[in-house]
């Protein structure tokens, strides 16, 4: 337990040694001209490109457009997935009516729909929204349905015998019992949301991060292409952190989320 401070600093910084060395090497290789800036510009050059884009406001505009697409798609598809999952999980009738059809549609990969979606919507906003919605729908639908179905039956019996029924039983026993599973769906679909959006924006868009990178590619601005890639990575990480935060909050009763 009682470690000396230098030792602790050393241990903490150890994992960062390799990445920092790599960055230095990369920077050196680019500066000496050994690595062409067409292939891979120097890290400092990428930083400068990001800085310039940020200052001109162009960066934020694209980020805002992409984020709006991602979030509205998530809200529509995720909301529908949650509602339908709750419905089919809770009511036998709804399950019989809907589940088989939904399971059949599930086998179509959302990205396979792209040609069809372009035929339907052109390169409109609607196309991207549709693709993201479809993509996030299934992870949330399936996990919600499964979560509701696998709530501990002994707890439901207990709740009933203590006078809970209807909405009270749902609120106190069934929904909390399904939360862990629903959040797995949310986390998965938050990751998938960006993947779909990247593909959709790269194929056809007139704004957004994907447009920015494809545009830069035409002018051989490799540094801006890399800025776009890094932005996607950052946004993906941010979505994942949000999902983790939700889990830590909603599952704070769970021994796996206490420290």
């Amino acid at each position, binding site marked *: 337990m009682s470690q000396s401070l230098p030792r602790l600093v050393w241990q903490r910084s150890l994992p960062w040694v390799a990445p920092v060395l790599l960055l230095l090497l990369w920077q050196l290789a680019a500066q000496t001209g050994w690595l062409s800036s067409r292939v891979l510009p120097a890290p400092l050059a990428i930083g400068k490109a990001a800085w310039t884009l940020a200052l001109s406001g162009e960066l934020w505009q694209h980020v805002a457009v992409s984020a709006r697409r991602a979030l509205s798609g998530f809200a529509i598809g995720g909301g529908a997935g949650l509602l339908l999952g709750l419905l089919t999980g809770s009511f036998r009738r709804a399950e019989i009516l809907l589940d088989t059809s939904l399971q059949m549609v599930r086998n179509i990969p959302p990205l396979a729909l792209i040609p069809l979606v372009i035929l339907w919507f052109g390169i409109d906003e609607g196309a991207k929204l549709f693709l993201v919605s479809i993509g996030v729908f299934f992870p949330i639908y399936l996990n919600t349905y499964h979560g509701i179905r696998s709530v501990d039956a*002994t707890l439901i019996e*207990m*709740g009933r*015998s203590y006078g809970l029924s209807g909405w009270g039983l749902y609120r*106190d026993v069934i929904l*909390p019992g399904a*939360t862990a599973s629903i959040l797995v769906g949310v986390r998965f679909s938050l990751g998938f949301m960006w993947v779909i959006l990247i593909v959709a924006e790269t194929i056809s868009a007139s704004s957004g991060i994907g447009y920015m990178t494809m545009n830069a590619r035409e002018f051989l601005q490799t540094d801006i292409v890399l800025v776009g890639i890094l932005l996607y990575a950052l946004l993906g990480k941010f979505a994942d952190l949000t999902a983790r935060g939700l889990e830590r909050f909603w599952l704070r*009763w769970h*021994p796996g989320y*206490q420290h």
Partner: protein
Amino acid sequence: MNHNSRETEALASSAAIVNAKGTGLSLRSIVKRYGEREVLRSIDLDIQPGEFVAIVGRSGCGKSTLLRVIAGLEEIQSGVQLHDGRQESTHDDTRIMFQESRLLPWKKVLANVSLGLTRDRYLEVLDVLNEVGLADRRFDWPSRLSGGQRQRVALARALVHRPRLLLLDEPLGALDALTRIEMHALIESLWREHGFTALLVTHDVHEAIALADRVILIEDGQITQDLHVRLPRPRARSDAAFAALEELLLNQLLGKTLIKPDALAA
């Protein structure tokens, strides 16, 4: 069997008025089947208001099923059961406890005990948590409690409804020996104080004799022994009469000898 059933029935209904704290129970020819399999075959049983009855028997003989039938959690194929002389499908004054605490893991101790209660009963909840000695843990998650503490919370959750009949299905089955002894004392004192009728299923003959006024043995879905334990409370477990009763019950459970209960249960 039940040569004096008419007597006890009369007693049950009259005592129900005298002793309002505990339910009097009469079961007549209860039959419970799962598919083809007959799990309870014509159970007849009378329990006095406020009595503490233990049910012992081999695993799978139908103890839990009997308890669930009495709790109204299982349909029966034939037979009648009367609670205080009345035939009702729901029993609001009956509570059941299981081997698992069945606490809601996403509710803190206080919220678990308050389940199904209105907010204005907060003080009662605190009182009963005090009785089981866990008032200071009321803001803890159930996952932070030991097995014994969880069972005490489950007991508090049942008691706050002032049950007149408490059904206990091996509630101490998963606890260590020391915790069990502590729980015996707690359950006995709560039973004496509240006056409810208690029906305890256990696989532990020792536990049954330590706690119950009467020990009932179930074999293959039938009551084969009904033994009054007339030892003074609190019971000394090292007592010779205690040991004799224990041996007698164990022998029958193991199928060794037939016994004459009246000779031994003095």
